[in-house]
């Protein structure tokens, strides 16, 4: 199966702008809001959403990075993963509305791990979930509050999100699983 581009740069940007508006609307502003990205690309997306919210509302939203490697329940089934840095906002997340941001929502296990990890950093008032792509195949009762694009796909397919900051290009592609990707 050939690799096909499903979202291009401008579409990703529009999706993130829409998510930003939705977050502001649901939160009735930016008070008590914290964006927390899941590395690697979720962290970049969280930063972009924060910038967009800043453009719209004129106020900065704290951004954190939350590595969930050490909280995964499948560590014994894969080669060892190296953890990545976690950086939480200085003010912490107690009492805040935390929006977790990831690039692709799939089985839901990463989000489960993120919820556990978040609980060790503090007690947010509420936790929401934003994903650029929702590809289905959930294995846990988890759903996203803000979605860039729903992309029903076969388990045999591979969704790759590439972002300018590390990949040099903004695009989402779908291809056969064996192909290289993120």
């Amino acid at each position, binding site marked *: 199966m050939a690799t096909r581009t499903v979202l291009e740069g401008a579409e990703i940007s529009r999706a993130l702008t829409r998510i930003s508006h939705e977050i502001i609307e649901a939160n009735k502003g930016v008070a008590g809001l914290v964006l927390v990205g899941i590395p690697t690309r979720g962290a970049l997306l969280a930063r972009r959403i924060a910038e967009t919210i800043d453009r719209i509302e004129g106020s900065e939203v704290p951004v954190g990075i939350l590595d969930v490697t050490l*909280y995964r329940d499948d*560590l*014994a*089934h894969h080669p060892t993963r*190296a*953890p990545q840095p*976690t950086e939480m906002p200085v003010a912490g997340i107690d009492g805040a509305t935390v929006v977790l941001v990831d690039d692709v929502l799939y089985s839901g296990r990463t989000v489960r791990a993120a919820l*556990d990890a978040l609980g060790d*950093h503090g007690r947010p008032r509420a936790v929401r979930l934003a994903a650029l792509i929702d590809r289905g195949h959930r294995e846990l009762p988890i759903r996203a509050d803000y979605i860039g694009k729903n992309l029903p796909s076969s388990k045999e397919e591979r969704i790759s999100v590439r972002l300018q900051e590390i990949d040099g290009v903004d695009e989402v592609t779908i291809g056969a699983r064996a192909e290289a990707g993120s």
Partner: protein
Amino acid sequence: MRHLLDTRTLGREESILILDTAEDMAAAQQREVKKLPALRGKTVVNLFFEDSTRTRISFEAAAKRLSADVINFSAKGSSVSKGESLKDTAQTLQAIGADGVVIRHPSSGAPERLARTGWIDAGVLNAGDGTHEHPTQALLDAFTMRRRLFGRHSRGRDLDGVSVVIVGDIAHSRVARSNLWLLRALGARVSFVAPETLLPYGSRAWPVAVHHSLDEALRVERPEVVMMLRIQSERMHAAFFPNEREYARNWGLDDARLARLREDAIVMHPGPMNRGLEISSRAADSERSTVLEQVANGVSVRMAALYLLLSGERAGGAAAPEPPQRGDTDHRGGDA
């Protein structure tokens, strides 16, 4: 990584991976909830054939903070004192279902034997063997140096060009050996300072500058790191130096030498310290001293090592263990 037996075979990339992982572990230790679930359901055995309270509690804290179950085994008062062999002990641990074995042993090479013979599937972590190696101590030393030198920007860095002077009983020191190999892999310059009697045989063939005079070493090497080793009186069965006063005068880090160090130099010591012998109280308690940081960093580094060793898929026999050797020990029937 399947085992951590020495630093001699540890490359630059692998060392930096362990140090970077330790940064994440250290960050978790700053939180209110210090525990991580990464090794939930795993069993780590601390197998100590030699007493060492601080190393044991450091490993115990590390394993517990990763949510592993910990079994402490001390040779004293165990079946080892009744004559049980290392193989029998290993097979007992295998039967218990140990996932990781942290071993300290007075014989050089014991951890290697445990890892390579196929007696046990567990990951083996050398916590000091004879006068051979003590890899986690070297890693925590390198971690401490990196943090002091680069602070928040330590991640991913090596120690290229850093001058490290290691002073004291090199002959009996596995810490000195492990440090030498690791620091070399990370690009540091290493010098040993000791009386001739306390230098190990063959050390002149190692990639290290050797000095007999501490004053000369401090002048020539201009070290960023001065690492004082403990005079191990329990191992001093022969006359390696005339007396303690003379040792302190020639090779101890006293107040005068402390004052002559370059401004950014740090003083390290693996502990426990003999104050007044290899290190003066002022040096031990000064801002330059990293002794307590080393202890705290030890937990983070050991967490990193345990995590990298025990978390991934453990394909049976990944290290191609030797086939079990029949006939080298008796084969008992029944439960071990």
